[in-house]
């Protein structure tokens, strides 16, 4: 399972990376915004994308839309982990095809639940 973590704050990437390690996912890679993350996704054969929303350069919602618009990437599961908490934003992310939405600050338990739920669905389909 190869996972890309996109967040502009290295500390947040590190926290997510550590939590993923606890869940048994050790093959994690990092990018600091959508414009560096997207080329990695296109060439890196990633199985899962975890992205923040608010980032300089390309935001998470734009990255999500770009992923869904790209034929090769369109089926990659995407989990949004963000401080953005407006209902309209969550609805927009859902409409853009997000697979899960975790609001910061989050607990290890919440992140674990969402990731497991996403994989259950991916496995079922």
């Amino acid at each position, binding site marked *: 399972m190869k996972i890309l973590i996109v967040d502009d*704050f*290295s*500390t947040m990437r*590190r*926290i997510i990376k*550590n939590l993923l390690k606890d869940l048994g996912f050790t093959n994690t890679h990092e990018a600091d915004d959508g414009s560096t993350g997207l080329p990695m996704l296109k060439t890196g054969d990633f199985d899962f994308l975890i992205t923040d*929303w*608010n980032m300089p350069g390309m*935001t998470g*919602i734009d990255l999500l839309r770009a992923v869904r618009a790209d034929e090769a990437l369109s089926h990659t599961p995407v989990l949004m982990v963000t*401080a*953005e*908490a*407006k*209902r*309209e*934003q*969550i*609805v*927009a992310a*859902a409409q853009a095809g997000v697979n899960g*939405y*975790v*609001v*910061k600050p*989050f*607990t290890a338990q*919440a992140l674990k639940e969402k990731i497991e739920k996403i994989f259950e669905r991916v496995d079922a389909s």
Partner: protein
Amino acid sequence: MADSKSGGHLEDIQDSIREHTKSLVESVEAGDFTSAIQHVQNLSDVRDQSLYREIGRLTRGLHDSIKNFEIAISDKDADPDADESKMADASDRLDYVIQSTNNAANKTMDLVEETIPVVDDLKSEAAELSVEWGKLLRREMEVSEFRQLYKKIDVFLKKVDGSSNTMSSNLSNILLAQDYQDLTGQVIQKVIKLVKGVENDLVDLVKMAGLVERISGIENTQEVTDTADVLLAEGPIVDAEEREDVVTSQDEVDDLLSSLGF
């Protein structure tokens, strides 16, 4: 600020108008129209003078507000040697906050990452020893095995001692790494004070500009348009309890998503 003064001006003006009107009526009644026209002229002068005086007062007020605002955003007036404005200083201070919280977070994570394997190691060795200890308690242990266990326990106890020291020192250092809260708190308070000061000066400035516009008859036809994009990233919501358009917990996110068929 100039309202108390304008009260005095207003009374003077009203007195002059009253006086000139009285004279005007008297002149008209007496049939002295030359004098009456003179009084009309006087009335008009009073109006012009009061208008000029009011514009002058407002212009001075506006000027003061602009000066205050400039002092707030630039420290150069107060200290000619200062090579930075207060605003630039404030952003440096906030950079310092980002830097120190970043350092503290990384230092804490370094220490946690260093401690976790130490704990895991102790845990697995203790589990192993516990199995052998159980054998001993159930008297299922050979003498040769017991000799090995004897040595293992000695090694383990020494290890526990060393590991405990490591963990205890790491925990103290994690505690110490939280000292940024005090320092960044002070810095942020200073910046908040500056921002509030600038905001007040700016409000004064806008008020004065509005008064000048009104008295001088300038109409500002530019409409304030609300172009806020709801999808624009806002960052952490600090007043979630007072807002209707945001969620306040992960449960609400989950409810919203499930209502959309997730």
